[in-house]
């Protein structure tokens, strides 16, 4: 199999080409994950770029991104595979019409009658001669039982279907799992993964992200924005703004053609940064906008 990345530096460069700025630690973990064939478990505050990383990786490697968005009640029928019942019933009716015996019906449980859901798709994707990158997004939203399904997939890269047998991947897809920690994942899952906690970026890194993603922005403004964001994250809000919010905000400022961060501009675009009434109320109560604007002038 063609190697995904030849070195850690290459991970670095390839991701940068996709406009994803990562640090050396993250690049190392990605390299290890692809070399050791282990899934990568990413945790971090919302909006630090966990999902984004999977997207960038798939583009950098020119692999198809197979995404499994987890939610409460997600079951194996929607995540792994399902039988194509309509096709099966038609087959049964056809058999009836031709007076076929029971033995001929046995074969309605083979791969032709199978609907592939994301996990099975990822395991069988090498057939299309294009390797896959599997993103299991927000695993903490799924029920605990679902994690048990994942164990076999993540450690052996195989799926057992009672009616058929075990289907195994010839080449391991690159797997990225993200979690927002609304609950703790099971240890058994964690043991099979390489863990990485994505911190909020440093000022330098965030500046680089902003200028890479939105090159139209004036450098002075970008620096001011990032400085303010660093300050905001030191404060105790219900939901602190992440990098995703920074980028939204930058886009909004560009659209509105604002090049100064005064109180008025801040007020108009506050919705990009804070999404909860409690935070808004606090900002109003403590008159934070004015003090931020003043701090930015100096």
């Amino acid at each position: 199999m063609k190697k995904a990345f030849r070195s850690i530096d290459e991970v670095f460069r390839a991701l940068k080409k996709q406009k994803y700025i990562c640090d050396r630690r993250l690049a190392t973990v990605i390299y290890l994950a692809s070399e050791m064939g282990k899934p990568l478990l990413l945790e971090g505050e919302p909006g630090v770029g966990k999902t984004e990383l999977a997207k960038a990786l798939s583009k950098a490697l020119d692999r198809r991104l197979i995404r499994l968005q987890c939610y409460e009640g997600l079951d194996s029928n929607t995540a792994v595979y399902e039988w194509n019942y309509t096709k099966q019933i038609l087959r049964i009716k056809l058999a009836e019409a031709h007076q076929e015996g029971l033995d001929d019906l046995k074969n309605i449980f083979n791969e032709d009658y199978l609907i592939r859901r994301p996990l099975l798709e990822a395991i069988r994707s090498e057939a299309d001669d294009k390797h896959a990158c599997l993103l299991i997004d927000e695993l903490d939203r799924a029920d605990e039982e679902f994690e048990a399904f994942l164990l076999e997939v993540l450690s052996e890269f195989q799926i057992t279907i009672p009616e058929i047998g075990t289907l195994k991947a010839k080449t391991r897809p690159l797997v990225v799992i993200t979690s927002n920690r609304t609950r703790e994942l099971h240890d058994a899952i964690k043991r099979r993964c390489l863990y990485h906690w994505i911190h909020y970026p440093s000022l330098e890194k965030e500046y680089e992200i902003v200028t890479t993603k939105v090159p139209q922005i004036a450098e002075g403004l970008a620096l001011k924005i990032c400085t303010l964001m660093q300050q905001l994250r030191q404060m105790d809000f219900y939901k602190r703004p992440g990098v995703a919010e920074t980028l939204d905000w930058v886009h909004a400022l560009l659209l509105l053609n604002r090049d100064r961060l005064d109180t008025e501009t801040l007020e108009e675009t506050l919705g990009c940064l804070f999404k909860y009434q409690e935070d808004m109320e606090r900002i109003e109560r403590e008159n934070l906008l004015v003090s931020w604007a003043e701090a930015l002038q100096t």
Partner: protein
Amino acid sequence: MMKSETLSAHRDRSGDFVLNSLYFAKCLKEKGLPVTLGRTLDALRGLMLIQLEEREEAYSLFCAHYVSRPEELAVFDSVFEEFWCLKGLHSTSDSKNHTPQVGMLPFIIPGEAERSDNHAGHQLQKMSYSARETLHKKDFSDMIDQESEDVCQMIMALAQELGLRLGRRWRTRGKGTQVDLRGSIRASLRHGGELLALRKKRRQPKKTRFVVLCDVSGSMDSYSRFLLQFMYGFQRHVPRVETFVFSTRLTRITPHLRMGQIDVAYELISEKVSHWSGGTRIGRSLWEYNKRFGRRYSGPNTVFILLSDGWDQGETALLEKEMKELKSRIKRLMWLNPLLGMPDYRPIDRGMRTALPHVEDFLDCHNLDELKAFGRKLEKV
């Protein structure tokens, strides 16, 4: 075999590095990180893939293998710093900081991690039947040291049992509302593919979540040791539990209770909780809960458990308001009060009187038997 293979493969390239990595793993384990042989072997294999002289790469490699939750990052960072940066080569005899430091916590809870299960059984057997019987009825606040160790172990056993029974609760499935196509087709095969009867299925009911708020103010001191032990066991064995402690302020301790070794858990908690043995402001603490955590943890399937003696120094109006708000968002509110065990106790102090109308179950928790009764009640919720 695997091990020697990996080791020899590294010896050519890095000499002492492999050995040091093993010592490093040992240090992490002593600090309570989930170090296993499998993880260590994987980490050693990973050494081949990085440049050993690059600090960040080595950090990443070990961190990815030995850390699995953000609370462990700080521990890892400090061990990593000490081991690889200051020490250079490491000698095994270094085990100075081995005894856990207990700062704010006014007690040390017996090392749950150190005792194996056999040992626990042994301890229990050692006690005579009547001694155990007495322990069951004895007020937590009257316990002497030796007794309290035994009781802590019994509390852990109780929590484990409770976890098992709560886990089994949702097995029954009645008639469904939706057609189960997969089951129907499967069943039809028996009759040569004729769909004789449709199988039905229904969604599993939403699982119950638990939120525990424990009072650790001064007036609860003689009970908090045991209640905390109970919370540790409860959280460990029952799924979907969130735990908070409060006195004048509120602190979420769920992630800390999850640490594998109880000593480490308490060390972390004592660092985090600065209001231990303070006064009590239940209203304010509930307000803090509702505001900061309510959206995430309160829900129609949440059972809320408050452990407190109800001595409230805060405003009654606030308590009233927050109780109302809390009640509107959850399924059931249970209040455990250790003072209920006293024969002449009446819930007439201000706080208790305000809160009581909103409470569905007002239970005692001053000894083991009462905790057990609480467990039985919980099953029926």
